[in-house]
């Protein structure tokens, strides 16, 4: 069965919004499309009449410095995100996450925008962007607006975007200074679906041996991208030692809601391995930041 009837290739954000709001029948924006096309093909997504290809919108395929921020277009393939020197400098966690998404061919089409629009709360890119405190630029018929990245998530698969008239244009990340660094790691299992059992991103700022500031994101730790804020408070202002890290871990376990996912991992297993994963991720980020 035809996966779509009409295919639009708008050349600007305005054209894209116009195409979205005026198309006849059901309509979906498509960036990489690796998830959407398969969902359509395998019947997990209701049939769509019109697809609006966002990869022809130049604004959405840019990756550049804008003032004191890094801008990543929502339709930039994750492979470019992983390879660009700018992300290498300012978003190491995102580079590491993007390098682990699927394989190279899929990474050449898959986008962060698609990931976020699908509202997968524990996707690798999502967890990295959460720790990096990204903001999203959303376009609608009334103009564009900036929102905190995590506010786009309402629940698993539930996006706060109004799919009939809004699209994500791109993401803004704060630039990383000399004393700041980030890291992303995950644990997989070799069977079944290619979703991580657990992933973790840490962004931190150090002042000598003191943790000046830290963001910890863990997936799947909640129905929306999970920031371990209590663990962050526990560790903030502390000097790094095993005692502080143990208390941080306790806070994290107290706040996170690990669940059992059939054939992937039990909640107990996740609780058991999060400590090791967090300390590995933390230590790498810590060693990357200059005293």
């Amino acid at each position, binding site marked *: 069965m035809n996966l779509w009837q009409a295919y639009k290739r708008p050349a600007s954000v305005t054209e894209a919004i116009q195409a979205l709001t005026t198309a006849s029948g059901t309509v979906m924006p498509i960036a990489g499309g690796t998830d959407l096309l398969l969902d359509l093909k395998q019947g997990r997504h209701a049939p769509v009449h019109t697809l609006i290809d966002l990869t022809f919108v130049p604004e959405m395929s840019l990756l550049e410095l804008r003032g004191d921020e890094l801008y990543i277009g929502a339709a930039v393939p994750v492979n470019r995100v992983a390879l660009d020197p700018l992300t290498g400098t300012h978003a190491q966690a995102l580079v590491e996450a993007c390098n682990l998404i699927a394989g*190279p061919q899929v990474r050449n089409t898959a986008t962060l925008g698609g990931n976020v629009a699908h509202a997968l709360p524990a996707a690798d890119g999502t967890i990295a962007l959460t720790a990096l405190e990204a903001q999203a630029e959303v376009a609608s018929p009334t103009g564009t607006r900036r929102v905190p990245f995590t506010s786009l998530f309402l629940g698993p698969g539930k996006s706060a975007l109004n799919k009939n008239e809004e699209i994500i244009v791109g993401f803004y990340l704060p630039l990383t200074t000399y004393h700041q660094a980030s890291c992303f790691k995950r644990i997989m299992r070799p069977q079944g679906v290619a979703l991580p059992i657990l992933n973790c991103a840490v962004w931190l700022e150090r002042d000598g041996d003191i943790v000046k500031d830290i963001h910890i994101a863990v997936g799947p730790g909640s129905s929306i991208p999970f920031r371990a804020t209590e663990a962050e408070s526990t560790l903030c202002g502390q000097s790094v030692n095993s005692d502080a890290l143990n208390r941080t871990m306790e806070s994290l376990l107290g706040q996170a809601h690990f669940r059992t996912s059939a*054939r992937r991992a039990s909640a107990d297993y996740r609780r058991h391995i999060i400590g090791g994963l967090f300390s590995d991720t933390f230590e790498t980020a810590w060693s990357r930041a200059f005293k």
Partner: protein
Amino acid sequence: MNNQISFTVNGTKHTIDPVAGETLSTLLRERLRLTGTKIGCEEAECGACTVLVDGEPMMSCVYPAERSDGKTIVTIEGLAQRVHEEMKLHPLQEAFIEQGAVQCGFCIPGQIMTAYALLKRNPNPDSADIRFALKDTLCRCAGYPSIENSIIAAAEALRTGEAVQKPTHIPDSIHNHKTVGHSHLRPEAVEKVTGEAIYTDDLKFDGMLYAKARRAMIPHGFLTKLDVSKAKALPGVVAVLTAEDIPGEHNHGLVIYDWPVMVGIGERIRYVGDALAIVAAETQDIAEQASALIEAEFNLQPVITNPVQAREEGVQQIHEKGNLLKHIKVRKGDMDAGFAKADLVFEHTFHTPTTDHAFIEPECSIGVPLPDGRMEVYVGSQIPYQDKTQVARALGWDESRVRIVGQLMGGGFGGKEDIMGQIHVALLANVTQRPVKLLFDRHESLLVHPKRHATQIRVKMGAMKNGRLVAVDTELYGDTGAYASLGEKVMTRATTHAAGPYDVENVRADCYAMYTNNPPAGAFRGFGVTQSAFAVESMMDMLAEKLNIERVELRRMNALHVGSITNTGQELKESVGLLECINRVDAEMRKHNPYPFTPIVDSANSNLIRAWGFASAYKNTGLGGGAPDKSGADVELYEDGTFQVRSSAAELGQGLVTVMRLIVSEEMAVAPEKVRVLVMDTDLTPNGGPTTASRQTFVTGNASRYAAKTLRDEITASMAEKYDVRPEQIRFADGIVHVNGHSMTYAEIYKEMKAAGKNPLVRYMYEAPKTKPLGEGGDMHFAFSFGVQAAEVEVNKLTGEVRVLKVISANDVGMAVNPLGLQGQIEGGVMMGLGNCLTEEFIVENGNVVTDHLARYRVPGIMLTPEITSIVVEHPIEAGPYGAKGVGEVCSIPTTPAITNAIYNAVGVRIDKTPVDQELIANELWERENKN
């Protein structure tokens, strides 16, 4: 915004109208007829469809064609350059051929395109770069080490401008002759690297229709109503057939005719993949729509989900003869006496899951009706002559009216032995009198074709203090699913091999091969022995620990040797290379680590623990059990002095065509290039029998050899008569026949033969040494191959994650006919074994398939590939061609227990259920730590 699209493919500019819903792969394959780009899964998992878009590798199966507007595309057809009249291969293409990376060839375009993109970006990649780039480009023949070597060799050739390096690590056979025993390239390798190789789905016939089967999608019930009227009314639908429309036999099957071609009203549905109706339509899209419009109603029945339940009293019997397909018994010696004598008796139960072959090429058949009333079926099949019989029976025709035209196969591994679409396309082509193609998508392939049997195996072992085994008692349950397929044969092999490759005085094994409402189970590389070897080799390590005997020594003292009597009462008279395999793997392993079974903690990360594991196996070559094991081959000399050898044995990537060519080359003393090979065409090639049981090198190898020998004798006799010399004075060397000082080319010989009224063509029907049925004692098999492997693993004791670092594999193959092809079989065997152990589980819940997409069924990729060392052991067997016996299966069998034994040696967790569950390892270690 939505007008024509313009793009460049391999340097040619195209401007075309877009088609709704079209992907780039469809555009390339169907509209531009560039069929080198392959479709393996259509879900962005396998990488076979990789093309370059603006220099970057992309999966063309999920790339909307309209996105190609303004882009530059390169496909596999765009790599070789035409220089004058000759095609000059790209160094990558050359290297893939030279290094033996090409096996079935189906994934190769994707591998080469992905590698091509890598080399453009990085002209000097190391192993890690290559693995990173090829992470999701799957090869089920699993020639990953050769693929990696090819890319390194090509990169070097590109950098230096020198010729592509040939492999240096593959020794000749110790029993080598002039041609056989040396490494040779595949005759079909060039077309496989250029994208010119044609597989069934690459064929298109004038007026061809597209078919789709409506599957039951319920695991058990009776069909009460079937309404095809809406499907018939859909414009573009040409025919809709149901069970009532089958003119001949309603059931098919390889041994037992128990599998309905379509289930009729009032009849029983036994699994989700049962066909209810078949549609032929003008397009694939219409056929799919029509199939979805067919309405069916069922009287649902309770689902039999596993073989143990199937044998319980009071459960519904899903076949007329009951749920028991076969109770298989092995009896040797006196069990009571054996166990009474033993110093130690212990038992353990093991479980293995259903697994899928996941060949990258899904099933495809095309039926073509001929004006003379005959029917051709184009299909990649492991048993062309069986297809012919079964298609003819369903049509109610004489067999002579059916011709199977075998095509290149993108992998088989036992999964292309049963009827899939062959009968359906023949029925539809017959009714419509138009060619009809039925291509499975990956979903249908996973749902429908027979799998590896899930098993439950309980082993009770008795041994003396010194380690000698005295009694082994095994109880096996095998889940043969809805239909018999080769279930009885598979579970017989599991049962007869259940006590391992050991000399044991008292053996008993009882196997219950049971019907259930799961997808059918049949042949799969290893043929039941994969499962029982996991159980018994785990038991051997458990025994070694209990008796405090070194693991390798325990195997050595019990190993089968010349003079041993097997569990089925067969005296082994020759060609038992097990001990040499054990010794050589042991020596190689100890080069890496003199204390291989003692855990080593990683110096940088104390959570990582490493150790080695060891396992042995054996596997019959040939059908055995009293079945006549025959193969026919024709060898013919042509006017131009070339030869052709023909047999309907199947080439599924394993390299049989090369073996046949080399054998005829050897016997006729001509260069291999002078010998062409034709296989799998039931009009043009004699019956080579099924391509199963590691038998073809032996039987069709022998048929080819004896046909060539006979032709040589005929030439000798003819020349001796003509020149009035004694036959001994006639010599064959270097493509020339020397007759008493006279030298003649084969072209001249052809003329002489013809002039003498003789046709230079010989057909030889080879029959392997006779075997005895199970239970009668004597020779149940005419040959056994032996395999021993050691695996080094690294276990993360915190997370339970397992990595296989190294595998050493020694295989007694009798004689290596083509060492280059053998290397590919051995590496692929290890990888398939590794997948069986660590990644693969075909999950069925209450009869419904959970793993119904490739994304849910993981086959190992290049990232999981360990360092593989192959040791070829050659204890020749008298009756084999130059001493050769089979290797296709035995090289895959010991991998699983070698890995699980290594896990135990590393962290002390005994794995008794595959695939290995890292969570279970972590939990067990965690609980142990909490107790302490």
